[in-house]
């Protein structure tokens, strides 16, 4: 096993694109990176700026509001049946985007979906990685091939199936299928399991541990970085999914955040841009917080599962 010495660490840190960094070089590097970061942040800043503008300022091209207000956020926190009062004291019709309800629905779908996805995909991946059985590789190839089927092809058959099961109009079609795994996640986790030394598993089996015990007590804890990646990617997928809710949900009380956002866009010119941007901000913030806390595990998982390509 090799260990990096303080000297080698300093060496690595002291080079950037193969050249030794001088204080001036360092300065320009950081300035360039900061400018690029600002450029990337500009749409987010614009979104935040518009969300804080009162209705009278929406058409202004200025990035920052002259009279910032949280009115748009207050409206999104008011139930859809409740008329609110605007800055001039005028009653305003309720907004169709009631954030607490939509966030709760999205969280329920995300938690149930992620739980099912992580569990089912890891079980399937372990089987494909470590258990020898006839036709395993063919089955794995078929599993991977399902990734090639576009969703529109499956839409009507799935709709028929869910209708038979009585799931249409509920959130079950959004999380139920996750309990049967997904080809991409199975592939990702299988690659990770394949990389774990056989000796660990053999030692456990020799000590009398069952297959399930090996999976549950040894493989899963070791696969935590890869499981984190699967969980995070799936949370992001569920959080942003528009097509699934659009097709399977038909009651406003079951709508998710991504679907709710659509209802802030008017067809005839009354789109409340400040509310739309406030809603977009509220949708983005939890994802940013999640990534902020999980980024170390996420990057480790990406590096060890081969996802980085």
């Amino acid at each position, binding site marked *: 096993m090799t260990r990096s010495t303080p000297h080698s660490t300093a060496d690595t840190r002291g080079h950037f694109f193969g050249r030794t960094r001088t204080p001036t070089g360092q300065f320009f590097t950081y300035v360039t990176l900061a400018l690029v970061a600002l450029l990337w942040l500009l749409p987010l800043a614009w979104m935040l700026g518009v969300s804080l503008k009162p209705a009278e300022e929406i058409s202004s091209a200025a990035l920052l509001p002259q009279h910032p207000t949280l009115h748009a956020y207050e409206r999104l926190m008011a*139930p859809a049946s409740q008329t609110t009062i605007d800055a001039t004291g005028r009653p305003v019709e309720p907004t*169709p985007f009631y954030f607490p*309800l939509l966030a709760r629905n999205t969280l329920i779908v995300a938690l149930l979906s992620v739980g099912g996805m992580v569990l089912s995909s890891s079980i399937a991946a372990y089987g494909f990685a470590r258990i020898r059985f006839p036709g395993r590789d063919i089955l794995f190839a078929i599993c991977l091939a399902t990734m090639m089927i576009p969703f529109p092809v499956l839409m009507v058959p799935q709709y028929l199936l869910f209708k038979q099961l009585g799931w249409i109009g509920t959130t079950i079609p959004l999380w139920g299928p996750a309990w049967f795994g997904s080809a991409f996640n199975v592939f990702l986790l299988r690659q990770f399991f394949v990389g774990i030394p056989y000796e660990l598993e053999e030692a456990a089996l020799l000590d009398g541990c069952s297959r399930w015990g090996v999976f549950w007590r040894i493989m899963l804890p070791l696969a935590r970085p890869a499981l984190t990646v699967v969980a995070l990617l799936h949370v992001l997928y569920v959080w942003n999914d528009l097509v699934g809710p659009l097709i399977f949900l*038909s009651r406003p009380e079951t709508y998710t955040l991504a679907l709710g956002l659509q209802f802030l866009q*008017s067809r*005839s010119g009354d789109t409340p841009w400040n509310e739309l941007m406030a809603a977009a901000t509220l949708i983005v913030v939890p994802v940013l917080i999640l990534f902020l806390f999980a980024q170390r595990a996420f990057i480790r998982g990406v590096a060890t599962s081969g996802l980085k390509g």
Partner: protein
Amino acid sequence: MSLRNLISALVLGLPVLLLLVFGPRGRTEIPAGRTVVVYWEKWTLAEGVAIQRIVNRFNETVGAERGIWVDYTALGDVDKRMLIATAGGDPPDVAGISDRFFPQYAAQSALTPLDALVREFDIDLSGFKPIWLDICRYDDTLFALPSTPFTVALYYNRAHFRAAGLDPDRPPRTTAELNDFAERLTRFDRGDPGDPQDDRIVQLGFTASPSMLGWWHWAWPNFFDGRLWDGRRFALDTDAGRAAYAWMWDYRERVGNRLVLQFEGQQPIIESAQNPFLAGELSMVLQGPWLSAWAARYAPDLDYAVAPFPSVSTQRQHVLASTDFFVIPRNARRPREAMVFLKYMVSQPVLEELNRAHGKVSPFRRPQPAFYEGHVNPFVRVFDEMATSPYAFGSPPMPNWTEAWTETLYMTESIQRGVARPTAALTAAQEKIDVLVAQQERMAARRRTTE
């Protein structure tokens, strides 16, 4: 547990837990003993509030008498959602769809024919302007009822007219005049006198570009006395088609297509103060009644007027008309209860109330005086009267209209970008659409055989 993990768990977990345990739970309260009519629509915000108000009133009055409860739900992409639900055997009882998908759905047997139901429920349609009912028919069968109709007209900037020496009360009346006026209204910024590359347009007279408010890219041949669908063939490569696209090409060549493309390349947000007509950068535009609502909001001082869009001849006033529809999907569970609701909806006071709230026109021959009072669009009478023209036309009632729509869009863009000359582009598009129509006919014949 480390401090970092504890903080992470608290920051992430606590709000989630609180929201899950104490968060709101939506529910719909439906009075006992009512038959529920499921109604899917696309409208939200102010439009959604207007329809919900009407639905609530129905539920309190006629619905209470007849034991019916209409459950209104706003859905995104309602057209496609309705088709999937119908194919899946679980359609709503009433849906609001747009004219883009109507012929396709009617051809695919996704809609319930309404002629017999209209007679059975004694719904009087004689008060409607003929164009709106024509658009609701496919293959001589009534498959829909009009909900929120509109016509599109020429909006023009009166201040620009004055500045160009034109009479602001005398809009162009023919397509030739339109080109002439547009050329006079176009203003350039000649940057470096020695470098033509430095020129740019600061004010464009008119554009038919789909990215610049010229949304009805397929409609131009109609203003040249053409009609795109004769019941069997999509007639694009015709005298009218060639005249329409030559008209478009000539204007762009005269102004300078490179500069026009540069101007159109701004890609502004249409529903904002950046809208080129509202920003005073575009002098004339073909648009619907909603542009007045945007003007009131984003450019309240704009001096503009509205007139019928010019046709090739003043003798025939071609008018583009469009509407959203009420339909009953095929195999809806409660078509009769749905008809009770639709009878209420298409009664003149109710439908005019809806259209006034939506800023659209009245579908009736003789609108009630109250319809115009307080209407958000100051030019609503112009839009309304245009619908009475005997030359009013809707989108072609052909089964694969969505595909033909896409092909004509590509064709229009290739002409506008100067990639293809009009004659060549028309011939190529005609050939492609002929193939699509033939395919559709074969599929329809197969369907008829299996039925």
